């Protein structure tokens, strides 16, 4: 893997404050109350890991950050801007679809099931958003896509369709696709959970490279080794609340709460 670094000037954010700030965030689907008041802060250039049992609401919280899900109560902001709303004279105005889309440009997301566009080759997947959203020229987008493919170690797979790639390769293309928009924040929703064990390492290497480069990252994961090694902070969620948070080595090495202890005893 090459070490060509991408510009990360955006990664520090423009507000000078936290990159993500959640205050009393609630979310329910019908009668199911998924998030029951989440408070947390993610600093710029931080690698922030979210762990917890399935159904604890960590993926839902991640999806709230780029407004794939609508928050029911509380305040959630990215780089000083409220997610999904505009505040004016103390009143909240819902954002139009176009405005929501504009905010999402700066937030990259990587999904558990990759979600690559199957009718496009790897390089076309990466070029799509810069051309369609930013109006970049085809040649400029291709040049950057090729660089990004090289960065994730797949320069020889540019012309392959997703169905011709392994899971680990697909996920690395998906990371490159998100990076092509030069985001200031990257969201990872269990990026290695759908992969065969021997393919996990390649994806984690790309993520480590990104972290070393100073990208702000929020990672929902079951990879405790990655959290311990790369994470700057870690939050354990259960049943829609933050149970415990701190430096990964402390939380993983010396959990304070019973629920954290019992969860860790099962996964470590």
């Amino acid at each position, binding site marked *: 893997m090459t070490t060509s670094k991408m510009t990360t000037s955006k990664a520090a954010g423009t507000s000078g404050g936290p990159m993500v700030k959640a205050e009393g965030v609630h979310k329910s689907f019908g009668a199911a109350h998924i998030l029951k008041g989440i408070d947390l802060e993610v600093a710029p250039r931080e690698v922030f890991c979210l762990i917890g049992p399935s159904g604890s609401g960590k993926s839902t919280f991640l999806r709230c950050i780029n407004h794939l899900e609508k928050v029911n109560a509380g305040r959630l902001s990215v780089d000083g801007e409220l997610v999904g709303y505009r505040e004016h004279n103390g009143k909240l105005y819902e954002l139009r679809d*176009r405005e929501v889309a504009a905010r999402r440009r700066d937030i990259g997301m990587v999904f558990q099931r990759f979600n690559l*566009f199957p009718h496009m*080759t790897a390089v076309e997947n990466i070029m*799509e*958003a810069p051309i369609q959203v930013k109006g970049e020229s085809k040649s400029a987008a291709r040049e950057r896509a090729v660089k990004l493919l090289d960065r994730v170690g797949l320069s020889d797979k540019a012309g392959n369709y997703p169905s011709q790639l392994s899971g680990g390769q697909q996920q690395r293309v998906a990371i490159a696709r998100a990076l092509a928009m030069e985001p200031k924040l990257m969201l990872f929703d269990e990026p290695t959970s759908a992969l065969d064990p021997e393919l996990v390492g390649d994806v984690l290497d790309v993520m480590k490279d990104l972290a070393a480069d100073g990208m702000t990252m929020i990672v929902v994961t079951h990879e405790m080794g990655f959290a311990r090694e790369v994470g700057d902070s870690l939050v354990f969620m259960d049943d829609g609340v933050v149970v415990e948070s701190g430096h990964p080595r402390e939380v993983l090495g010396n959990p304070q709460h019973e629920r954290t202890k019992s969860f860790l005893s099962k996964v470590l």
Partner: protein
Amino acid sequence: MSVDVDKSAQPPADAPPPHPEPIKAIPVRHYGRWVAAIVVIGLVALLFRAFASGNVNWDAIPEYLFNGDILKGLRNTLLITVLSMIIGVVGGVILAVMRQSKNPVTSTVAWFYVWFFRGTPVYVQLFLWFNLGLVFQYIDIMPIYKDEWSDFMTPFLCALLGLGLNEAAYMAEICRAGLNAVDEGQTEAAHALGMSHGKTLRRIIVPQAMRVIVPPTGNEVINMLKTSSLVIAVQYYDLLQAAQNVGRDSGVVVEMLILAAAWYLIATTVLSIGQYYLERYYARGSSRQLPPTPLQRAKARLSGGFNRAGGAA
């Protein structure tokens, strides 16, 4: 993958790898297949003989194959098929989008449209268009056009509206199924990249939905070509009408019906070939390797010799 191999059974490392002895065995004889083949061939031969010796003037068919009236009817049939399908596809896309709309009025209207046009025979619909003059005496689009309804509603327009609007109802259902078949994760991924609803639909969802939409649409075109023979109800001069007219005038009624059938077959065959290549185009990316086209397969056979296994891809 590791497989336990008995080391002692392996030849010494310096010996060349032995050629495996091909298995020589007597294949199973399928006598049943031979009997069935002979019976089927016999029946087909009997059928052929019956038609050939029947009271049909076969010479009349090639004679009238390129008859001017027949060709005019064929041209009209192809024209009405293409135009009705265009109305059907455009209308179907609009109805499918209306059906998925969050506005309850538009989605209900779309539902009623499909309910009515799918629920009544197209033959009846054609008659209704033909007799709509009972409801509307005049057509009056204020500054542009004013005429008596019966002058405005030509057989061509009756046929076009009857077939096209009926087709739109079927196309709406095909398009809706296609849009629904695309994984929701695709929309999420596109939205997460900052793409708008419209761009997501155009660039990501529709190209993938096409893979589901194209094959049944090809069927619809072929069906439309044949259903268009019903426009005889509104006195439109199509292939069947032409064949009947020529047959009546020349005393070769059955012969001209066979001729019409032959033209319909030729047209549907051409359409089927077009559909094959269209499907192939939209299947890209969905399977690891596209199967070779019949042309490519033939070329590979010629260059590689006939003994190579065909269709190994």
